């Protein structure tokens, strides 16, 4: 499914501020995988996601999605197979457009942009049905502008938009970090639900160790642009939050030394 082969990303190449953000990183993920990614600030987690989604080009290595080399593909082109939710709830929707218009853009991913109506009655019905599943009352507010939504509602909507067109890969960059605990819980529950869609592979960055172990089937710890721990199967089942935090600190200390 997702195969990352020896990618490297250097910021400010050739300047005194040169920073090796991703260092010869390899990762293979299968369809159905839900991988949580942890690591301290500056470990390269977001950079990894931005390299996968094409916001940044990589300096070396390859990224393959379903056997197809997307390393040099433009960000908007590979977005057709990749759903994304950002940390900032404002980044996920067009604020001056209505909820249904936002959904229409998201569900039209990959279709050609023509002069046909952006929103048909049939689509509207479909959105209403699906929105009801979020259980947030959004199905009755479809004609409201998305700027009127709360952070939690907006993040739930963004998550919904990210999966509505059936992507192969779902990238979540601390998507609950800006939410209150209740909203975060709700969005995480939705994440669990959506991640079960057939053939979807989910990567989720989080700073919450409990969430990192409590969701998904695999956890990776990043440090200094590399994957330093990869937990799955029995080993992951036996891992506790305390031990994970301890491990996290060892890696952190190692970096500081």
């Amino acid at each position, binding site marked *: 499914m997702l195969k990352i082969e020896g990618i490297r990303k250097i910021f400010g190449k050739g300047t005194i501020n040169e920073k090796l953000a991703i260092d010869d990183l390899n990762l293979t993920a299968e369809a159905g995988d839900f991988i949580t990614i942890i690591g301290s600030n500056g470990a390269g987690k977001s950079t990894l996601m931005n390299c996968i*989604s094409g916001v940044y080009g990589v300096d070396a290595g390859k990224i393959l999605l379903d056997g197809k080399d997307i390393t040099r593909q*433009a*960000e*908007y*082109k590979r*977005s*057709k197979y*990749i*759903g*994304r939710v*950002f940390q900032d709830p*404002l*980044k*996920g*929707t*067009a*604020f*001056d*457009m209505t909820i249904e*218009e*936002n959904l*229409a*853009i*998201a569900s*039209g*991913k*990959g*279709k050609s*942009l*023509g*002069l*046909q*109506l*952006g*929103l048909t009655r049939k689509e509207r019905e479909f959105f209403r049905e699906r929105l009801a599943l979020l259980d947030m009352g959004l199905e009755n507010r479809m004609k409201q502008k998305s700027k009127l939504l709360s952070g939690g509602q907006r993040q739930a909507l963004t998550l919904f*938009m*990210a999966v509505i067109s059936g992507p192969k890969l779902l990238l979540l960059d601390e998507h609950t970090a800006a939410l209150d605990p209740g909203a975060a819980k709700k969005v995480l529950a939705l994440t669990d639900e959506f991640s079960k869609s057939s053939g979807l592979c989910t990567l989720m960055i989080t700073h919450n160790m409990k969430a990192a172990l409590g969701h998904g089937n695999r956890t990776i710890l990043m440090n200094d642009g590399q994957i330093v721990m990869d937990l799955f199967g029995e080993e992951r089942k036996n891992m506790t939050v305390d031990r994970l935090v301890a491990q996290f600190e060892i890696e952190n200390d190692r970096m500081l030394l």
Partner: protein
Amino acid sequence: MTIDAILGSVELGLIYSILALGVFLSFRTLNTPDLTVDGSIVTGMAASAMVCSAGGNPCLALLAAFLVGCLAGSVTALLNTKLGIQPLLAGILVMLGSYSVNLRIMGGKSNIAIIKADTVYKSFQEAVPTEYSSLILGLIILIAVTAAFYYFLRTRLGFALRATGDNEDMVRASGINSNAMRLIGLALSNGMVGFAGGLLAQYQSVADAGMGVGMVVIGLASVIIGEAVFGTRSLLRRLIAVSLGAILYRIVIAFAFNLGMPSTDLKLVSAVIVTIALSTGMMGEKFSLPALIRKGGGKNA
């Protein structure tokens, strides 16, 4: 003030409404301050006047005006997206360069009179011989343009364009080429401006290379006045408000002239109106000065 003077203002206002809709598309929908307008309106005038004076079909002249306007907008968009020049500066460059292009279109003359040539206004006058014929024609054209524009903004392409102005990150994450949207948006915006210029040349029976100065500010003033007076609740209402704003603006200016304001002060008055509107946040926070400076130096390059 005479009825004739008011009638004339409204006739002119109907043409400026199309300019205002074009400015609305770049400033509001795409969220990009585009100064190309000062150049593209004259390019439209020049193309329209040249086709008419060569004995061409006046409708064809309007089409030519639209297309050259699109071209000017495309150049601005390409300078921005391909060469990474800030939108504000890209617009200024095209505005400057187009001055020479406009003079070339007009055969090196700064002024082309088309008094004897056929225009849409004269043809319509012949078909509908009333003193209101210019008013009726202007209204028909404006309604057609507004309807087409409204439909366009509700198409899949229109959605993508509006979202690009709102949130470019989201647009790219939705698999849409935001640079292509900027290109289409600015081309269409200046196409409408060029069309308005073409219509203006035929209405006044003259094209003048110096007429573009301050047109973007007039367009902006119309958008601001329209939205403030007539409301922004729905998209259609907003478009109608912008059109009415342009007409209201012309009427206010006509009154000011009538009260003895010298016509040479027109540009100063326009600038003051827009300054007041911008500083009081009537354009929304996005267009307050600090926000514009941030934007100009930021990610849009």
